[in-house]
């Protein structure tokens, strides 16, 4: 059922996780955010309308309701993102420790502005709120990995390692 309804090929692991999540709470709806995370991971890091409709069917909810929830939370990308999503914290403890220089460095290196994706679809750069790394600033996430105490050289190393 779970894999059959899915508009894109779902990995067996993803199917297992969704099945587990749907049966984990006294009220099934509680699994909505968790299932959206799995579907987004399986779907190249973003949710399109087909994903939303799929999740809506799993929960027996109107697609508009699922979209309304997904759009409330910043971690759900409702538009395609690059293979590597770079999120640089520019909140206070990072900003007083050089976060803007880090953003400027990445913009220059990739030839894009914040909010944009490189033409080859490899990188998307965005700025975000506090990541909970204020003691090791400036900080960024590349997909799910944290990178802290950044310098332009350190950023270069991280980005060089992205294939």
């Amino acid at each position, binding site marked *: 059922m779970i894999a059959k309804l899915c508009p894109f090929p779902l990995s067996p692991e993803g199917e297992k996780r969704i099945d587990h999540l749907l049966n984990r709470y006294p009220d099934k709806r509680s699994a909505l*955010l968790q299932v959206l995370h799995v579907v987004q991971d399986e779907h190249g890091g973003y949710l399109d309308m087909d994903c939303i409709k799929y999740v809506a069917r799993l929960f027996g909810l109107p697609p508009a309701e699922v979209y309304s929830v997904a759009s*409330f939370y910043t971690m759900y990308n409702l538009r395609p993102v690059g293979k590597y999503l770079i999120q640089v914290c520019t909140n206070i*403890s990072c900003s*007083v420790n050089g976060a803007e220089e880090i953003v400027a460095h990445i913009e220059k290196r990739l030839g894009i502005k914040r909010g944009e994706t490189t033409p080859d679809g490899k990188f998307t750069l965005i700025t975000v709120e506090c990541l909970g790394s204020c*003691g090791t600033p400036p900080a960024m996430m590349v997909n799910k990995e944290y990178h802290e105490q950044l310098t332009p050289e350190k950023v270069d190393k991280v980005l060089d390692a992205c294939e």
Partner: protein
Amino acid sequence: MGEMKVLLKNVHKPNSHLLSTYKEGGGYETLKAALKMEPSQIVEEVKKSGLRGRGGAGFPTGLKWSFVPKTDAPKYLVCNADEGEPGTFKDRVIIEKDPHLLLEGIAISCYAIGAHRAYIYIRGEYEFGAQVLENAIREAEEDGCLGDRPMGHDYPIYITVHRGAGAYVCGEETALLDSLEGRRGHPRIRPPFPASKGLYQSPTVINNVETLSSVVDIIARGGDWYASLGTEKSKGTKLFSISGHVQKPGVYELVMGTPFKELIFEIAGGMRPGRNLKAVIPGGSSTPMLTADEIDIPLDYESLMEAGSMLGSGAVIVLDDTTCIVKETYRLAQFYAHESCGQCTPCREGTHWMVQILKRIVNGQGREEDLDLLLHIGDTLGGNCLCPLGDAALGPVISSVKKFRDEYLEHIKNKRCPIGG
């Protein structure tokens, strides 16, 4: 006074996250003992300890627990691990380095309030932390510390890790409940309070990671022992996340009442060479700023309150004389405008207008009247919102306009930043 390791006693051990390490230090023995006590005895010990909520509001934990009705209806415990207040990074240390301390604290607290199920609502970005917790739960269940028969007792305790998805407002306890129920994170109207109608309309207790972790040593060593630490009204130890312009930022555990200056200038290594302290945001980004002259005080709830600010989550953000206060205030105002859920007009509109006004001041297009306009927005917004986020947005804005008025005026008159920031 000074540093003391109660919550942080394990974090430096190699493999501190493993059950075997935790058990070597006597882990889960307190749970075992607690399950032989009457639940009401545990609540009494926590009341005696004087423990107050470490998530920001400082509400007495034992008292909160005593509001839960003593009926057979299902009850829930929710651990708030959303940690979204800028400057706060303390819960992450416990989650990643000593997950079993948190789990043991949750289990004891479940038993005290009569809950069999607990949810840890962890911010979505802490995916690594969520994995550490899930592994720890699996280990503890397999070993019989948690699950159907925790430590051999007939009191099932199930803990589930639930990831958020990037919304600061979900740290507010009723928004958190909506989010846990699979909805947009909109704060609820109170009453009813969560203690009577919370998750799935059932009695629910919501506590911060640090609060629940503190319960373990309180039960192990007694409420009186905990209450012997600290000041008259602020008891025990507290984690402080200190960041910004200090030489040794990090998470430090201090006995309540430790001098503020000791934290900044000794423990956290003081200012960088040639720099001077300008301002401190003492308890997370929403707490009013203090100037360098205002921090000759002890770190406890009452002293911070008297100084016109708050201890909050214990997130100390230190700003030296290279900081443009206007620019940083603008940055924080943007944060609150972005995170307002939009339910209340004063919060939705007020946070937005504060950003617009601060933006023009930063860009050299401000007017002198703007400063009073900011204060006026403060009067309209303050106390007129459904949840504390609206008021939180005012903390940095109002305090900086009042305390650094000259710096604002320089931006307005000279149309540029005197610091060059």
